[in-house]
């Protein structure tokens, strides 16, 4: 089982990170120094490292503006890390479509219990404490009806 993380190489192309940072400020009045959003694909399937590399390069990342990392966290300067996932049992359309793409690209089938699940990681930098991070999760990034979140402090 492998994990692929996809992110923008140059912040100026990264509209999503920019708008999350803006929303944190305008909706919650919390100042951050930087926000970086990373898309994660959990490949719960029998896949060689070579095939995984192939998927990352040719299916999930846009080689012009994006980079990817496999099985390791993208290097990001940040104080806090948040991850938002769909609850188990909630249909992950993006993951299902990724699976279709994988079938097409690798020209093979997968068994019934193999799947791809997606999540988003947010790396935040700034003068933030646990209470603020919790608010960002609850009031902006995750809807706890269908999603759950985890957070972790990265720096001391």
């Amino acid at each position, binding site marked *: 089982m492998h994990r692929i993380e996809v992110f923008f190489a140059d912040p100026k192309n990264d509209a999503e990170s920019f708008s999350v940072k803006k929303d944190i400020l305008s909706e919650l009045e919390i100042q951050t120094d930087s926000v970086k959003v990373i898309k994660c694909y959990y490949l719960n399937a029998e896949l060689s490292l070579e095939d995984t590399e192939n998927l990352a390069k040719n299916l999930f990342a846009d080689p012009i503006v994006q980079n990817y990392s496999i099985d390791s966290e993208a290097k990001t300067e940040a104080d806090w890390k948040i991850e938002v996932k769909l609850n188990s*049992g909630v249909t992950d*359309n993006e993951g299902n*479509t990724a699976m279709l793409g994988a079938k097409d690209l690798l020209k093979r089938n997968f068994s019934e219990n193999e799947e791809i699940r997606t999540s988003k990681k947010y790396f935040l930098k700034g003068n933030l404490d646990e209470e603020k991070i919790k608010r960002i999760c609850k009031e*902006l990034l995750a*809807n706890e009806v*269908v999603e759950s979140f985890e957070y972790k402090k990265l720096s001391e």
Partner: protein
Amino acid sequence: MKEEIEIKNLEEKELNELSSKMLLSLNTEEMKTLQDYFKEKNRNPSQAELETIAQTWSEHCKHKIFNSAFNYKEISLDGKEKETKIENLFRETIKSATNKLMNEKKWLVSVFSDNAGIISFNENFDVAFKVETHNHPSALDPYGGANTGIGGVIRDILGVGLGAKPIANTDVFCFGPHELKKEKLPKNLLHPKRIFKGVRAGVRDYGNRMGIPTINGAILFDERYIGNPLVYCGTIGLIPKGMDKKKAGKGDKIIAIGGRTGRDGIHGATFSSIELNEETSATAVQIGNPIEEKKVMDVLLQARDKKLYSCITDCGAGGFSSAIGEMAEETGAIVYLERAPLKYKGLKPWEIWISEAQERMIFAVPKENKNEFLELCEKEDVEAVVLGEFTDSKKLEVFFGEEKIIELEMQFLHKEVPKRILQAEWKEKELTEEFEEPKDFNETLMQLLAMPNIASKETTIRMYDHEVQGGSIIKPLMGKENDSPSDASIVKPLFDSKEGVAVSNGINPLYGDIDPYWMAASAIDEAIRNLICVGAQMNHIALLDNFCWGAPTKEKLAELVRTAISCRETAIAFGTPFISGKDSFHNEFKIKGKTISIPSTLLISALGVMPDASKRISMDLKEKENLIYLIGATKNELGASHFLKLQGKLGKNVPEVDAEEAGKAYEKLSELSLVGEKNSERVIRSMHDCSEGGLAVAIAETAFGGMLGAEIDLRKVFFEGNEKEKTNTVLLFSESNSRILAEVPFKFKDEFESKMQGCIFSEIGFVLGNENLKVTGLKGETIINSNLKELKENWKKTLKW
């Protein structure tokens, strides 16, 4: 049946407990009816049978409240009582209006019998229209709820008749105030701004990804929508003539195509029949996938044109149980549920049967076409499975493997839901009208333009693709700077033919706080006059009603009765039949024992067919020195106006409608819209309706459109009523209905006036060459003199996020 649920020997109290424990949302009488049924059969029901009955009999599917009998009592202020008995509210109001107009309106094709209403479009096509609500799910998960709301109504259009092709969407949202202070937000509720953003994105992502233009809409704000926002989604579709009828025959295969079945949206139909509270469960939420639905649409339209199937319906509320149950109402069906493709293992048979997983459609395919149909699905990469077949047993039989889990008679399922008699009581309200006169009309106009209900919705509109398919002729935003809101929108769906479809909405729940009767009349008038403003023809307009109400208490039911009666009377007077509708009750939120109920909200959507779409008229002022006319009378009707809302008051003089008088003027304007081929030959160059904010806001908006100033003189405005009540405030801010601003070149003055003879109209001013808005008051003094750029900036900033 292996797993039985004990019901035969239950007491009344235990029956009620069972209903609420299983989330069946059935009342005592309904539970007793089904107890009797199983007593007679001398067995207990399976869980799947109980769930099927609950789904089929749900408010959502059977519209029990609207089809009930009513004892309607009116109590006037002096204590006089008047009682009226109504046998069946729906039949005696909405439907009776259509029945009455049926003979005269030859263009009606299919009304109230299918997923959507259908009217004639041109010699080859008909047009179908449906508006749905998806309120409860949107309160819990704004993105997913709204996403599946629009997905559902698109499937309604796909499944109407033998299938229509969606050509346009329209959306109306009601939210709590976006500036609500955090401290005022009840626990466990999402902030209105977050709901707004989520809903907006949800509807956008579905419509845009399916390639359907969103051409029209509205957004309203009120404190009472905090716990229960309203999300109305509508779709218009084009269907070839002769395809409006469908019928499954004996031996036809039941084929399900599209998305897989999961645990999504279990109990959605019954869930919408109860109110939300702090612990409402999340399995009621569904997840949408527009790409899947697009593929389903591609299969459907090809199969339709090859005539591969005899009947079709969408899987909406109640899932397979409702879809197959309805299709087999006249015949009977046998279903093998273990064949349904699942998203994951572990679903119980009854869960598969009632799941509301999205993007699924059911087809009745004659045996000889089965293979061709399945091949087509495979070619388009859409999963399809033969679930069973239609029979002539008049029974619904469902198997899971060897085990029979359902055996119910269609007659019982569809016809024997007990009828209710409901009590409704209307007490005349004691209201007063007091307010402060504005000190500076410039300032008041500025404030009105910044109110969220009136302010520019440009940011939201821009997120929606209104150009895809290439047919939008009157777009949601028009004018010199492409930023002024059209009254209605027009789509010309066929490239080789000149007919157009115009669509608009009318909604004003605030008026209902004074009298729901006039709320309904006003909404109908607003929807129609919006269509007239873009050049639609008065003789070819159909309406959709959409009721969103709180819990059915006797006060709320009285509001319902008044609204419905008004719908009948106003629609008949205008000659505009209803063709379809929807109702949603229990729109309220319980928190700490306190109930916040939404204002009773009626949305009227209007559909107009234009013989020549090039005769469209936009709302922006076109040319300096043209004359500005106001059609219709201004009255002292500040009640529930936005001017009074500014002061936090309700008032009492709610705008009324004289439909005979208004209809006459609309007909003449329709005829005038057709005059002239080139722009320079047209008698009317622009039209704009007076609604929220009255004449003052209307003149500002039309001036924003052309970025041309205007000068108007209130002394010339036709006022109806007691002369003593005629003030600058009333003339500028009263929201009297049936009024339209029209721009007419001086050279057509005589032609316009002679044509409008017999109607109320007044020439109130003219277009300026500069960017100033100037209003002269009743004493000849200048009361407004504002720069358009400043006004516009103020109007645009409120919702610029």
